[in-house]
């Protein structure tokens, strides 16, 4: 019987000829990423031995620069770990820092067919590189760093067959909100994105879909490899790899078509990402206090340049805090060079240093009582970005930028068409 992309990699990495849904397998891990939260005093356990320092990446991203003494202490512990084991791929606060999932893209850390782990739930982001990437628990990361292995439960796969191309002012975030709104959670299952429409999406846009697949509760999210992907990886990592394609007779839980050309801007209402989408027009007029662009899902060069196009020559509405966070220093430098950052700052945006920031309610834009935010980040759960009485709407960077200009939830086509 044929296998899906996820099944093929699970089989290859566990030394089996085949796997089927329900199998629990032990696999070799190619890349283990640790970040500042792993080193927090309440989480860290002192590792005495690691399998291979070449397989480890360390970054600080959730709380950068350190907003508290505990966050600073975590960084001290992380730096000591890096020194102790001679970790070369270390992204300390400074020139090469960024959100772990963005660094994977910036530096080509995920190769097709490989297995990558990090104890951040949006690690499935790296599945854009035709690999198996999964968010796991902190103890799983310590185990994998020590033993070079982890376990996975093989689930069924849902395939999304993309066709067409996105209209102006409509983004991969809207495509995600369409899928999440209609199909809801995909718990215990993998999602596989493919089809002729993939070619029309940039790697950054595809990465929005894989990062957001965490919100579908997917086990793994994968894209097929194509020329654009090969070019992206080869420009950043000379290591050899082979693409993993699904078998023609692979067995899917479902195959669903998504016509990108037919999509329109959507928003997710507060408190849930899935089963909660509506056309932006239905929410239009909702007053906001904060507009937020950033995170592993939507802090890329594409996202920041799109926001800049929306606000160019205009001013952020009075009473709105417009916060923009490039996902890495690489993205920050690229968007400085392109002029997007200048355009945003002139419009009244505040640019924060690369960090997960307020996406997880950590810092850089935490919400107060009864405040309303529209965000392009990853989650809108009750209380996630701050006070439990605050409300978080989710939308594309274009919709967030348009809303920042008017002070109410606004269709970005009002500014981009």
């Amino acid at each position, binding site marked *: 019987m044929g296998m899906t992309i996820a099944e093929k990699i699970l089989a290859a990495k566990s030394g089996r000829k085949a796997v089927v849904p329900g199998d629990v397998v032990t696999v070799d891990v190619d890349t283990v990423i640790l970040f500042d939260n792993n080193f927090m005093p309440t989480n860290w356990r002192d590792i005495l031995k690691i399998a291979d320092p070449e397989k480890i990446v360390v970054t600080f991203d959730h709380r950068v620069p350190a907003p508290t003494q505990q966050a600073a202490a975590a960084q001290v512990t992380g730096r000591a770990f890096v020194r102790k084991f001679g970790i070369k791929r270390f992204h300390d606060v400074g020139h090469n820092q960024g959100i772990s999932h963005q660094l994977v893209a910036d530096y080509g850390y995920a190769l097709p067919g490989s297995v990558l782990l990090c104890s951040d739930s949006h690690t499935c982001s790296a599945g854009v590189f035709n690999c198996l990437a999964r968010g796991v628990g902190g103890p799983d990361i*310590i185990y994998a760093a020590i033993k070079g292995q982890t376990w996975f439960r093989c689930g069924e796969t849902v395939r999304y067959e993309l066709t067409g191309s996105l209209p102006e002012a409509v983004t991969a975030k809207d495509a995600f909100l369409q899928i999440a709104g209609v199909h809801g959670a995909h718990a215990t299952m993998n999602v596989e994105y493919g089809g002729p429409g993939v070619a029309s999406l940039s790697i950054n846009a595809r990465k929005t879909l894989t990062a957001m697949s965490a919100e579908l509760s997917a086990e793994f999210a994968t894209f097929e490899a194509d020329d654009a992907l090969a070019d992206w990886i080869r420009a950043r990592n000379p290591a050899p790899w082979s693409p993993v394609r699904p078998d023609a007779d692979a067995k899917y839980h479902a195959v669903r078509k998504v016509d990108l050309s037919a999509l329109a801007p959507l928003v997710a209402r507060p408190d849930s990402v899935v089963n909660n989408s509506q056309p932006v027009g239905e929410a239009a007029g909702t007053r906001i206090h904060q507009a937020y662009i950033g995170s592993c899902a939507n802090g890329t060069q594409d996202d920041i340049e799109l926001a800049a196009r929306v606000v160019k020559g205009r001013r952020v509405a009075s009473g709105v805090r417009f916060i923009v966070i490039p996902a890495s220093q690489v993205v920050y430098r690229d968007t400085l060079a392109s002029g997007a950052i200048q355009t945003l700052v002139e419009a009244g945006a505040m640019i924060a240093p690369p960090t997960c920031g307020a996406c*997880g309610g950590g810092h850089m834009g935490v919400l107060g009582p009864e405040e309303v935010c529209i965000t392009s980040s990853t989650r809108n759960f009750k209380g996630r970005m701050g006070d439990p009485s605050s409300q978080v709407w989710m939308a594309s960077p274009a919709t967030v930028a348009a809303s920042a200009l008017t002070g109410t939830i606004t269709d970005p086509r009002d500014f981009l068409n």
Partner: protein
Amino acid sequence: MNFKARVWIVGDNINTDLILPNKAFYLTHEEQAQYVFHANRPGWAQQVQKGDILIGGHNFGMGSSRAAARSLKNLGLACLIAESLNGLFLRNCVNFAFPALECPGVHAAFTEGEIAEVDFEAATVRNATRGAALKGKPLPPSLMALVQAGGVYQLLEQEGLIAPKA
């Protein structure tokens, strides 16, 4: 592992931000446990008695990879039984040796305050108040062994691969 205690009931899609909110990240494990459901059921954590059982709906534990299972354990809950468990959350239940069981039908089979009898290894759940019995899905043997061993840190400590807890 066998448990018999009163049950608390929550609904579908309980996320880890509700179990372990960001504002508790800097506190001790014991203090963190007092913030379980702080946003959606304030004051609940303070009513939980040691040994109580939590019943959840579908996709329990969705969301982030934070050590939410550790907080449920530290709160004193004996085990969790849900319609279905989020895959990442299940990993942390295994990691921290918190017994968590998938048992379709469990949500409708109990009213809050009733008594449940659970055989974790056999994956059986009985409503001791009303007598109804349910069969859940046993953990795969390799994962069950990890839970019985006390979780990942216990295992790595025994093998001399991490330092004993300070």
